[in-house]
């Protein structure tokens, strides 16, 4: 008997579960509403989705994620609800109860919570607690807002009472549930209800009342396809007939039971085959996946190879470009240097021709003069002799200074000259240099004045300074008229430099020529003064020497009035 009872209850509770999900639409609507409302909560959306899809594991995962980062009460309640239902479905009943207890009182579907709790308690054989839950729900008024299967509740109540052996109450609820099932046209549940009622009577040994219910259940079961139900109902009939002593009938039921059981087993086998197929398919898929993975690996390797070769090529390209640029740069430098060298070479050539021309004419003049000298010597014309000798001296002097400049220029170009800066008394050097030109100036009746301050010291190379002064004085005398004046003076303009100025009252220099003279590597080819040697070499040398000594060179001149050659030299500066 106990065997029969147990079998039946088990069936009932199971039979109750699919019922439960069908009446979820109100809940689903509410969930969708909330998902809309909390669009930002991705995990909640996912949990809801999987919940409705009945994917319990995913629901559990996403709901716990959502729970860990939300404060919203509604969401929390929903999540707990999802988890509770999921646990329940996974038969982790205690976990489910815990989750149900987490749900706050504000939850929109408290009766669903109660219902589920009741079902769990029933499964755990805590019948009294279950009854409390079910009664609470049963007391709720009929209402479209509340959406649950009352017949199932009543049925469950009946089962609970039956277990507690409170047969009166059990009978009352079971009968009511059977009526409700009849109304719902739910045959499966009706069969359950009839079986339960039959069991109720049967346990009380009210066989007469029980048997019709068993039979009703049996007949109804023929209309359904549930093999489990069929087998249990048939087994019940077999047991009943066996107890009645009607063995042939019992045997018939037994056989029928076996048949259903076999069907059930078949179904199980089919299920198993399906499972196997599924497994096979999964294996197949896995294989495919491995294959694809291998392919992917191959592809990645290929791609990496391509990438590396690309990078390598790029590096090569960059290096190539760099060297190309370098080469272009070098070429540019070389070209610039070549241009400069060409220019210098041209200058040198020009200088060569000008100097040789000058020398030639000077020596020629000397030659002619010597011939006249000899003639006059024969005729003892002493007056003429003196004049001619003086003329010769002048020519020799100018040739000498030209040659000296040439030598200095060469030394400068080849960087052979001795160069040592030291503190020098400007006045003394001017005195020494002008000493050489005294006869020349006397000859031209030029008045010379050295007005350089005796205390002015400059920090330069002495020989360079001498060359500079020689050339400036030479020029000043050369371009001065008879009875002219040459003044050399110093101007202490600033703290670093001292200006040395050679001023004459000569013919002056035009603006264009001034610019020309100040240009680098410029040589004047044009002869401005007849009979006066002018190559520009002297000034060129001056400029180079001044530059080498860290000074500056300026020309101030007005044609016809005179010229000021200004040499700015660094002062006595031992620290610099």
């Amino acid at each position: 008997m106990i065997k029969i009872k147990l079998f039946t209850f088990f069936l009932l509770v199971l039979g109750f579960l699919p019922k439960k999900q069908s009446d979820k639409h109100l809940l689903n609507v509410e969930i969708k509403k909330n998902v809309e409302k909390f669009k930002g909560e991705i995990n909640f959306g996912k949990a809801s989705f999987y919940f409705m899809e009945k994917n319990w594991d995913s629901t559990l995962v996403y709901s716990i994620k959502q729970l860990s980062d939300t404060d919203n009460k509604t969401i929390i309640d929903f999540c707990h609800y999802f988890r509770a239902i999921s646990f329940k479905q996974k038969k982790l009943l205690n976990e489910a109860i815990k989750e149900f207890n987490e749900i706050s009182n504000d939850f929109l579907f408290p009766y669903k919570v109660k219902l589920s709790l009741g079902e769990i308690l029933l499964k755990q054989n805590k019948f009294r607690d279950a009854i409390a839950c079910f009664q609470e729900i049963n007391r709720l008024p009929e209402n479209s807002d509340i959406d649950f299967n009352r017949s199932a509740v009543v049925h469950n109540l009946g089962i609970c009472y039956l277990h507690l052996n409170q047969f009166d109450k059990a009978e009352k609820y079971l009968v009511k549930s059977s009526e409700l099932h009849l109304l719902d046209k739910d045959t499966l549940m009706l069969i359950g209800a009839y079986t339960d009622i039959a069991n109720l009577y049967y346990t009380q040994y009210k066989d007469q009342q029980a048997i019709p219910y068993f039979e009703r259940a049996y007949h109804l079961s023929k209309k359904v396809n549930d093999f489990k139900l069929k087998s249990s109902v048939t087994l019940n009939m077999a047991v009943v007939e066996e107890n009645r002593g009607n063995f042939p009938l019992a045997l018939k039921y037994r056989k029928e039971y076996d048949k259903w059981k076999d069907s059930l087993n078949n179904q199980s086998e089919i299920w198993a085959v399906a499972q196997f197929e599924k497994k096979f398919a999964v294996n197949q898929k896995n294989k495919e996946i491995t294959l694809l993975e291998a392919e992917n690996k191959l592809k990645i390797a290929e791609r990496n190879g391509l990438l590396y070769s690309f990078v390598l090529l790029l590096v090569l390209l960059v290096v190539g470009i760099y060297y190309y640029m370098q080469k272009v740069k070098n070429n540019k430098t070389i070209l610039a240097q070549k241009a400069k060298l060409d220019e210098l070479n041209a200058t040198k050539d020009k200088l060569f021709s000008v100097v040789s021309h000058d020398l030639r004419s000077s020596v020629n003049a000397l030659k002619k003069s010597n011939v006249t000298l000899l003639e006059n010597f024969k005729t003892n014309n002493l007056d003429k002799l003196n004049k001619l000798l003086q003329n010769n001296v002048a020519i020799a002097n100018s040739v000498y200074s030209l040659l000296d400049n040439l030598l200095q220029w060469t030394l400068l170009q080849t960087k052979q000259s001795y160069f040592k800066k030291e503190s020098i008394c400007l006045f003394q050097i001017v005195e020494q240099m002008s000493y050489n030109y005294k006869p020349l100036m006397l000859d031209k009746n030029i008045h010379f004045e050295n007005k350089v301050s005796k205390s002015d010291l400059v920090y330069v190379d002495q020989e360079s300074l001498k060359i500079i002064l020689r050339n400036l004085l030479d020029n000043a005398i050369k371009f001065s008229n008879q009875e002219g004046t040459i003044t050399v003076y110093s101007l202490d303009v600033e703290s670093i430099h001292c200006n040395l100025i050679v001023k004459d009252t000569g013919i002056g220099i035009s603006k264009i020529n001034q610019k020309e003279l100040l240009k680098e590597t410029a040589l004047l080819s044009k002869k401005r003064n007849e009979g006066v040697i002018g190559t520009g070499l002297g000034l060129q040398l001056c400029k180079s020497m001044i530059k080498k000594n860290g000074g500056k060179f300026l020309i101030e001149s007005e044609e016809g009035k005179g010229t000021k050659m200004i040499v700015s030299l660094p002062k006595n500066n031992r620290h610099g």
Partner: protein
Amino acid sequence: MDNLNVLIVEDSSADSDALVKVLFSNGYNVVGVATSYKEALDLFYKNKVDVVVVDVFLNGNPDGIHFAETINAAPYVSKPFVFLTSSNDRQIFEKAKLTRPFSFLLKPFNELEILYAIEMAVEKFNSQTNVFFSQEQNTVVTNEYLFVKKGKALKKVLISNIVYIEVEERYCNVVTEKEKFVILISLTKILNLLDASKFYRTHRNYIVNIEKVVEIIPADNLIMLSGNHKAILSNKYKDFIKKLRVL
């Protein structure tokens, strides 16, 4: 005041003749003209030389430099040198890397240049630069001599001959037993340069050679010096007496 003794080391007689002429006409005493390294050494040690004018190249060898190096190698005999050089032997001259302060002159040169070079050589040798051409001073003081610029020429005075020096503003009256002359140098400078164990200040304006003191008359604040010279001893400098060896 004596003339400076100059030794000329020069192989070209044209050049040396010109030099001798210029130096002589400017009050220098040419003690000799050497034409070779050996001769130069000979003349140098035989005579009391104040300045040497030496050509870098002697008979085609840089013997002038060797000569200078030989002199410089011996202590206490070195003298101021003026090197004469022409453009084309300047490189060798440079290579010789003379570490001593020296003066050089590029040929050809004029009278002013050679005089200037000699004066510069004396200045540099005694590490008292910018003396002869400044307006504050015209005297270089060495251990033995005062070198004084007189006009274009340079003269020397044996310091041990000085009896006393009297200061008058920027000038100093130097009194020796035989003569008296004026030099341009500040008192503090000359005091620093003179041997402090021989020359003492006895008055704001007097510096006395201690070896020339004959008698001190404290009552009259007078110091009697040899050659009948007198110097004043002021109270401030009376410590001077203690330094004298009491006879």
